[in-house]
């Protein structure tokens, strides 16, 4: 069993940020459990470890509620990737990203990558609504079967209790266009003082997803993990070169302490 704890040493950190009710927990749940279920509002932040090939990726699923804002920078400290999530049917949720959440990423790694994700695409986009998760080939057959009933229910019965949109049977008004997200991505780079040309292009870093149907969810996480891989490798190399990482961690810790005591 000590193997477990050894295995669980995370190599890289990914943080999910965004206003409440945009579906951060659902996105992660869709990706890790391959299911969509009612979640309850996240308390504080929830820490997950995801085995991705030989690597361990730690994911912080944070609460979007203002109440827990104070811990945001703690969750982001040393992050290699930040997923900024909004709700495509809610313009305010994109605005909140800029107003409240962008500043939390100050503690992330200097080479941190940013993804802008519009969730709940199934509410506005027929493609996303009709999307069947099984197409994207989850490894396990039984899981596929578990998966199927859901979209079927959706098409067979237009009023599943879970979603107000399908209640009306119509497609909700889309409030945030992909261009808005792209523009926001540009502003992130500017905020970070990054050069647009040398950074990852917006087309690659802006996604529209549906945690409900699974649309684009795997694409998002896999793409992100592919991109942070270099950061993992670099960290591993540093590890091999010298045991400085521990020192670095210590220094990081003492910095924090100094900061909290001075204010």
């Amino acid at each position, binding site marked *: 069993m000590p193997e477990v704890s050894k295995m669980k040493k995370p190599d890289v950190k990914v943080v999910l940020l965004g206003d409440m009710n945009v579906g951060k927990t659902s996105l992660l749940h869709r990706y890790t459990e391959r299911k969509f279920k009612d979640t309850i*509002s*996240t*308390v504080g932040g929830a820490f997950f470890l995801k085995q991705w090939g030989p690597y361990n990726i730690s994911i912080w699923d944070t609460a979007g509620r203002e109440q827990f804002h104070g811990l945001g920078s703690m969750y982001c400290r040393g992050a290699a990737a930040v997923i900024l999530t909004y709700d495509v049917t809610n313009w305010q949720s994109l605005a909140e990203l800029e107003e409240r959440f962008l500043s939390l990423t100050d503690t992330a790694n200097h080479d941190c990558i940013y993804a802008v994700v519009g969730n709940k695409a199934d509410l506005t986009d027929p493609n996303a609504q009709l999307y069947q998760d099984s197409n994207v080939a989850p490894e396990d057959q039984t899981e596929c079967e578990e998966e199927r009933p859901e979209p079927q229910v959706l098409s067979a019965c237009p009023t599943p209790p879970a979603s107000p949109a399908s209640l009306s049977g119509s497609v909700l008004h889309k409030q945030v266009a992909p261009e808005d997200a792209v523009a926001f991505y540009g502003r992130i780079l500017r905020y970070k003082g990054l050069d647009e040309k040398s950074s990852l292009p917006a087309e690659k870093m802006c996604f529209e997803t549906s945690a409900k149907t699974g649309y684009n969810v795997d694409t998002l996480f896999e793409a992100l993990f592919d991109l942070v891989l270099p950061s993992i490798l670099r960290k591993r190399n540093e590890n091999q070169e010298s045991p400085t990482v521990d020192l670095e961690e210590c220094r990081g810790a003492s910095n924090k302490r100094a900061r909290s005591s001075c204010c």
Partner: protein
Amino acid sequence: MERDNHQEGVAEGVKICDPPAESNPPADTLATSLSLLGNHMFPDPVERNYGTTVNREEPVDSLLSDVSAEEPSLNAESHSNQVTKLETEETESPECQNNVATQPSDRGAQDAATDSDQGDSGEFVVTMLAKAKLEEQGLGMKGRSSPLLEAGTEEYPAFMSHRDEDVTADSWRQHRKHVFVLSEAGKPIYSRYGSEEALSSTMGVMMALVSFVQSGDNIIRSVYSEENTVVFLQKGPLVLVCVSSSRQSERQLRGELLYVYYQIISMLTQASISRIFEHKKNYDLRRLLAGSEKILDGLLNLVDSDPSFLLAAVHCLPLASSLRDSLSQILQKAITPNLVFSILIARNQLLTIVQEKTVIEDTRLEPADVHLLLNLIGASSAFQAGEIWTPICLPLFNPDCYFYAYISYLDPPECTVCLLLLSTDKEAFYSVAECKRKIEEAMVAQNSLSLIAKVQSYSVSQVGVSDLRHFMYKPFDVPDNYRQLTQFTSPEMEAPYSSEEEKMRLLDLYRYMHSRIHSTSRPLKLIYHVAERETLLAWVTSKFELYTCFSPLVTKACAITAITKLLRWIKKEEDRLFIRYPPKYSTTPNPSKSSRGGKSDQQDSTDNGFLSLL
């Protein structure tokens, strides 16, 4: 030793538990005329008289009527009960008046039924009565006062079923217990059933009532109607209202409102709530509490179904003391700086708890704080896979500061055993998570999880007393276990109390017994109550509080013999039933500097995002 006590207790009990003398004529008439209104606005003279005489006045035949007076079932209670409530209120009043005189605007004074100006009090009563009736109608016809329009356009969170409830429907009105939270500006903050928006006008009426009474330098405490008891609790800038048809005592209901208040404090801290409302009187607190409704819903369901709240004590899982000790040792060894509490929970009951040394010396964990923690864990269990790190305030420990709670289940996917670690350092997640790994490893090595899985609560049959159906036993603080967490023990509820309705019925009987024992006007030491389908005996001494439920035909003598046996059994099983000597560890690098764990993070409360709001 137990025996002596018990003899003495019985003697006392008989003396004291005589039924209420059917009240004085003046009070009686007053009671009927003012039954709607709590009697807090009584003219002084009546009150004084009444308050002092009532306890002594006992009819000669009281002994005989002892049993019969208790007999009417809870449902059948009517007039005489309202009188009892009156008594309760009145005896409280005189002492409160002092409070009012010295600190009229003090928050603490909300516990007081106040009488201010005697001169216009008569007039005031009349106005209040009219008002109270108005309120009654308001409560009865919420539908009409809260337009459907509002409800229709409301955007409901998709999955909150009773948030969608039609507040105009009869079914809404028929809920056993409503709880509302509003701000002093009358803004809705929380409603147990139905959406707050749809109820905003109803809450407006509640606030009008509160401020109307306030304008006369009074504090509204309760309104009684035939069906419902309306209890008000004002805490800082928040007003909490309970509308209940559960027949619980006002005091019990107020206690429950206090839990709701504490749960809100546990999420936001008292300091930040006052700060927010100081800056902006009409702040919409739902902005901060959004998403927490389920935690409050969960709390209210627990309050109704779990006697821990009634007894203000913690229920711990019975465990062989060797196993409990080994678990405590595991927790004791897995420490990191600023860790202050390590708590192991299974099925919403305590397995063990280990505290930081300097913390335990100064103070102890209050049962209410533990209840809030347990509720938080229960309410967030829907998503159990991860490790949770969240700020949480323990209101009774320190209402203004946050702890940082690490919550993780040790046995996924079953998720029955939960580890809760509390730190005062908000950055400590990784080191605290490391403690969990250590604990996990040690528990694997000792095979603790499978041992815990086998643990069951016990059956009342193990006591070996044939007529005993159920009991709740709460030992008090005695020099022996001073500074220990207040606990109680209770067997599983078995047939005939296995269905939800029957469980609730038994709990209601216990609540009734509890309200009689803890009546403010006539506290009892022993009460023998023949109910419709069972016989109950409650007994409180300086050492314990005990509630027992027997089969219906048991005699008083039988019951008392049974209790003697029960007490002996509990004594024998003590080590298994309770956490006897909570172990400690020391994690404060510099104990002299911060003698109170909670104080050390004072600065954190200002650092938790609230400044950004202001």
